[in-house]
Structures are given as structure tokens and as C-alpha cells.
């Protein structure tokens, strides 16, 4: 899911870098929560845990294995903002130290995995979290976090001119990976509850409506992204024309504005929903 440098078209990675900057700053501030640096050691160590955990192989079928990605697990145990911060740190270390994921593409990867993926993973917990739906919430959180990240990545590749014939099979693979993430996340959560019952319930999370809404928005955006990714060139032109944006076929350098606009539009939609939801939440609690 980590997109290397060289895969995305310039308007796409540039837009996402620009969008990721304020998003990461916001995440950093909210995760710190005015508590100085006291949280840093725990977040760093848990980030190392997820990093290392990604190396544990879970048997799937016929000799294939899957591994945990971890966004949803972090969201459940640390809260969504802290989870985003940790995922961002993981991505940074992966990109710089292990050259896994590009530098210019960092904004895209951060938005896909650290922000939208975590939000989508958190949303089920917010809406279904307690009581008998808990296991379903955990499972679907894992599933959605991978699905949303993957859908976004594929949409960005499509937007960069990669033919959908290549992307469609990837989507199928990602769907399977998403199911596995759900299963693995649930497995780990249950193992944790066995070791320390009530652990998850103890973690204080300020579950806000705005966050849940943002999670839904992320899922929505990803659904659009999936359609986009799997649509043929005609389909894209139709969608673009309907949105009133002139679209040109992907040849180097042209269609700059169109692609940038498309990218911006998507992200603006997410931000817009977040703002509206936040205002609605404030009115509720007022």
C-alpha cells in the first residue's frame, strides 16, 4: 500500500502533500492534547510494536500469509488522533530509513493510511463500540481501515494515469487483505482482553460525533475513489463532465488543472464534511 516515488503524477502528489501538511499538524496538536511530551514515549514504543508486529505472519491458505497493518488496532487502544500520529511516524521511518514509500509521495501515503485509514478504522468503534456489537465493530474497523487506504491509493494511481485494467485485480487482492486485517485485529484484541480484561474499556477516548462523521466521510470518499479507480477512460470522462471539469487523457504534463481540481475536490469534500459535522456536534452539546 506504500506508494513509492515515481508512481504518482505531479498534480496528484503535490496536491496531497499540500493537503497532508495541515492535516498532520492538526493530528499532532490533538494527539499531544496539551500534555507536553509525556505521551511521546508510549506512542513511540507502540509505534515500534506495530512496526515489528507487521513482521508476524498469519497463515491464510495454501501457504500464503498475511500481516497486520495496525491502524485500527492503534485507533482502538490509543484513540484516533494518537493512532494517526503513530501511523504517521511509522510511515516516516519506513520512507526515510527503509525507503518503503516515497518522499514526495509521503503526503499521499500519510493521507491514505495515517489519516483516512485510521478514521475509517475508528468509525465502527464509535458507532457500534459497546455491547454485543463490539466484536463486529473491531472486525469492521480493521476491514475498513485497509479498504479505505487501498481504495484511496488506487484512485490516486488511476488519477495519475495508471490503466484500470491493472488496478482492478489489485482491488480484489486488497479486499482479501482487508478481511484478513479485520480477522487479525479481532484476534489480537481478544488475546489482549485475555491477558488484561477490561483493558480496552479502560482506555479513555473522547469519542466525538465529529470523529465518527469524519470516519464515515473517509469511507464515502473511498467508495468514490473505488469507482474512479475501476472506471474505464470513458467512465472517467463522463464523471468528470458531470462534475463540470474538463478532463484530458493522461499524457505527460497535460490535464494538470483537471487532475489537481479533482484531487482538491475530493479532499475539500472530506474537510467540508468534517467542518459541518463539528459544527453540528457543537450545536448538539451547546
Amino acid at each position, binding site marked *: 500500500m506504500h506508494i513509492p516515488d515515481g508512481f504518482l503524477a505531479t498534480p496528484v502528489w503535490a496536491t496531497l502533500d499540500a493537503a497532508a501538511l495541515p492535516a498532520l499538524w492538526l493530528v*499532532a496538536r490533538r494527539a499531544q492534547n496539551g500534555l507536553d511530551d509525556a505521551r511521546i514515549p508510549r506512542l513511540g514504543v507502540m509505534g515500534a510494536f506495530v512496526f515489528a508486529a507487521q513482521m508476524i505472519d498469519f497463515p491464510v491458505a495454501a501457504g500464503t500469509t498475511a500481516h497486520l497493518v495496525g491502524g485500527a488496532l492503534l485507533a482502538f487502544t490509543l484513540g484516533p488522533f494518537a493512532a494517526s500520529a503513530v501511523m504517521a511516524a511509522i510511515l516516516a521511518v519506513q520512507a526515510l530509513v527503509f525507503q518503503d514509500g516515497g518522499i514526495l509521495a509521503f503526503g499521499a501515503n500519510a493521507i491514505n493510511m495515517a489519516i483516512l485509514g485510521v478514521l475509517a478504522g475508528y468509525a465502527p468503534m464509535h458507532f457500534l463500540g459497546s455491547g454485543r456489537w463490539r466484536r463486529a465493530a473491531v472486525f469492521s474497523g480493521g476491514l475498513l481501515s485497509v479498504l479505505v487506504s487501498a481504495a484511496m491509493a488506487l484512485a490516486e494511481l488511476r488519477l495519475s494515469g495508471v490503466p484500470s485494467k*491493472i488496478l482492478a485485480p489489485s482491488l480484489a487482492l486488497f479486499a482479501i487483505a482487508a478481511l484478513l486485517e479485520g480477522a487479525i485485529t479481532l484476534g489480537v484484541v481478544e*488475546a489482549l482482553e485475555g491477558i488484561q480484561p477490561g483493558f480496552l474499556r479502560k482506555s479513555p477516548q473522547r469519542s466525538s460525533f465529529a470523529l465518527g462523521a469524519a470516519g464515515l466521510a473517509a469511507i464515502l470518499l473511498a467508495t468514490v475513489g473505488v469507482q474512479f479507480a475501476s472506471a474505464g477512460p470513458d467512465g472517467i470522462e463522463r464523471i468528470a463532465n458531470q462534475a463540470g471539469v474538463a478532463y484530458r487523457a493522461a499524457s505527460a504534463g497535460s490535464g494538470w488543472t483537471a487532475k489537481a481540481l479533482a484531487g482538491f475536490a475530493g479532499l475539500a469534500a472530506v474537510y467540508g464534511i468534517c467542518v459541518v459535522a463539528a459544527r453540528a456536534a457543537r450545536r448538539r452539546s451547546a
Partner: protein
Amino acid sequence: MHHAVVERWSRGTSALHRRDPRAKIAVLLVYLIVLATAHRNFALIGVVLLLLVLAGFLVARLPVSRALARAAVVLPFSLAFAAALWLVGDPYRGLTLVTKAWLSALAVLLVIATTPLPLLVHGLESAGAPRFLLTIAQFLYRYLFVIAEETAHITKAAASRGATMRGLLGRRARFRAAAGALGVLFARSYGRAEDVHRAMLSRGFSGKLETLGTLRFRTADAGFLAVTSALLVGVRAL
């Protein structure tokens, strides 16, 4: 290649090692942008950029072939992608993709191999990246190998459980064992984090992490930045 090797490389003393990390970060960004936006004359530009990076490794007195091999870690994924692109009839795109991915990885590797990570983080911070996230990344890096070792121990134990059971039951048992291993690892990591916090408190930690060094941007750094950037922009204009 183990990361310990790259860490050792980063402690060298060449002219490139001694440059301010901010200058190196800026040059890296220029390089990556030149590479990303190159379309016309891509073959020529690619060759020149490769030569520039190789020159960098030579100046840094680092083993070139090992660096090339290390950067090749991006190749499997990119080559698979390129193969797929070739199958749908766009081999040129696939080729440019692989080249760009590999050259980018090389450039990043050069920076990492000539800048100790703490210094790089200082540079990023003074360039405006959020300190909170960067410090998390530093702690993450510090405990990554410690926890990776622990993981290896735990998985060896877990792997033996259900190893002889076949079919679905066997897979289920191994799945459970792996999930259990992760659960234990999670709990241990959480406990380790608390120990670290206690150790910090014991030496007077009162909420803010202080650091030792301040970076000093020298004339040599400015010169390096100006010359290399100009060179790169010139390459782009080819």
C-alpha cells in the same frame, strides 16, 4: 542488508557527512522534484541523475555497489507493476516508473547514509515539521530493533504451536497462536513504555524533552545547496 550497516555509514566524516542536514534535505527535495517532473529526454536526465547520485556516494566514501543493491529493495514491487503495464501495452511508462522509483530510493539512501538520524530529525524539525511527530518517530526508531528481537523470540515459540496439525484446524491453531503472540507483544510493549516513562521521571523529566545540539548553517552548506540545486535545475532543463 542489515540496517546497522547504514547506521555505521552515517557516522562517516566526509565532506558530504559534514554538511548541514537542512541543506541535504533541500537538495534531496530538488532532486526528487526534478526526477518526478522529468518527461522530455527522460533517458538522458535519468542517466545524469544516476551519475550525480553515484558521485555523491563516492564523495561520501561509501561502497557504491552495496548502496545500489540496498536501493534495489524497491525493485520487486516496481518491476511487477512495470510488467503489468507492459502487458497492457504501455512499456515505456513501466520503464520510467521503475527508473524513477529506484533513483528516488538511491537519493534518499544517500541522505540517510550521510546523516545520522538524530541530526536528520533536528534538521526536519528546524525546517518546520511537527516536533511531536518527529520525536515519536525517534522513540519508535530507538525501540524498533529491541521489539523486533522480542518479536522473533515470541514467534519462534508461537510457530511451534499447531505446527503439526494439518488443514483448517492447524491453520486455526496457528492463527490463534500468532494472535496470542501479538497480544503478548502488545502488553509487553505497553509495559516497556511505562518503564521508559519511569526512567525518564527518575532523571527529572518534567514534561518537556530537551535536546543538546543546535544546527549551524555555514557558508559551505549554503554553497553546497546553491551549486547542487542549480546543477539539478539545469539537468531538468535538458
